[in-house]
């Protein structure tokens, strides 16, 4: 059974009122994770193949080619986990 933990190394809440959440994918799984996400989420914009601006179920986020993602306006940890599960599992 595939789990979020298979792909995600760390989740960091940023400081600041924006309350962004940074998701860092496991180094050896990052390409797989990005490929899965790109299949499911809507690509709003792709910048130089380095950044992808995406939306999924009303949540906007950015993925960087080095295996890091910023999620905006996520209400809480449960919502983030649910979103990640829908995208990755």
């Amino acid at each position, binding site marked *: 059974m595939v789990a979020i933990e298979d792909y995600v190394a760390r989740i960091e809440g*940023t*400081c*600041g*009122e*924006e309350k*962004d959440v*940074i998701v860092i994918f496991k180094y050896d799984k990052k390409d797989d994770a990005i490929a899965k996400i790109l299949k499911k989420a809507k690509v709003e914009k792709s*910048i*130089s193949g*380095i*950044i992808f601006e995406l939306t999924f179920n009303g949540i906007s986020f*950015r993925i*960087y*080619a*080095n295996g*890091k993602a*910023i999620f905006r306006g996520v209400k809480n940890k449960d919502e983030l986990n649910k979103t990640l599960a829908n995208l990755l599992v």
Partner: protein
Amino acid sequence: MLDPYKVREDFPILKRKINNHNLIYFDNAATSQKPRQVIEAIEDFYTNHNANVHRAVHTLSQEASELYEGAHEEVAKFINAKNMAETIFVRGTTEATNLVAYAWGLRSLKRGDEVVLSLMEHHSNIVPWELLSKIIGFNVKYADVNADGTLNYEDFESKFSSKTKMACVGHVSNVNGVVNDVKHLVKVAHENGALILVDGAQSVPHLPVDVKDLDVDFLAFSGHKMLGPTGIGVLYGKEEILEKMEPFHGGGEMIKEVSFNPATGRCRITWNDLPWRFEAGTPDISGGVGLMEAVKYLKKIGMQNVKEHEEMLTEYTVKYMRECEKIKIYGPKDLSAKCGIIPFTVEDLSSHDVALFLDNCGIMIRSGLHCAQPLHQIFKLQSSARASFYIYNTREEIDRFMEVLKEITQI
């Protein structure tokens, strides 16, 4: 003059590649990288001299004690303290501030007294006093900051009254690198009968700092921001003030005697001499050894050279950034009273996006509030990106940084 290319040879980490790019490390205000001399000194300690310090007669303990005491002496000379009794080793600036708040403040402040801070302080210089004020009931007053991020000196002076017992200010802002006129602030505090604690976390690693010349009562700084290891820092305090203070933590090392008195059923305790009175328990001996080596390294370069090198890098970067319409720099236009810390934003992008894009290209900067939320409120910012320099950074690195920043502004 400092030769950053020669300096770089001493820093093994700078040979690393990140995401197939040469590592460019511009997060020095958060922590500095470590030269091989510091790494080897720590390795040598554990390989050849490791033992607990003081009160043992065996050879290794004496060697460890000599190294650890030598570290205190080296640090004392570095900041021109009277002697090593005035340099207490702590975990870092945060612990040093807490030490003053609790060991001095808990016994010297009472309800109705006042402590003056400023709105440009790092949280570590705010939170201990706010916490303590909830226990004692003294007031905390905050001096204002001008729109350009410099301290409002008039407002600072106006906050003092006969009730003011302590002032706490940063020497250099960790957000915008502004260098405060500490000599003036000390004069103001002393004229009003107050003591002053200076947060030197961003000044001691980057400028010549002379505690006698500044006449500060307390100075706090961290080893890891000045080439030393994490977990070791320093509280300087004037000997005559430290002598009157009760200990912060209790335990071994900080006592001379603990004798049980059967008549009273209690223990009678006498405190150890300075600085050990404030260093309870087994200290971070290897950290002290690493810090000593870091201090020796900086002394060899010369702190004036460190300062001038960072000023050159700052001027070079700011000039570049000002050419870019979409980049906004925060802080004073006049760079003469500024260290190598540059906070900035890129139009329409969050600071975290900027930092992640740069990370993708091997460039490490910080994003967020940098533990100084009140100052960000003044700038009306939710967060900022921050580039900060040190002795191993070069103009070529800044060229590459600006090349990537310009790419970011095209997004």
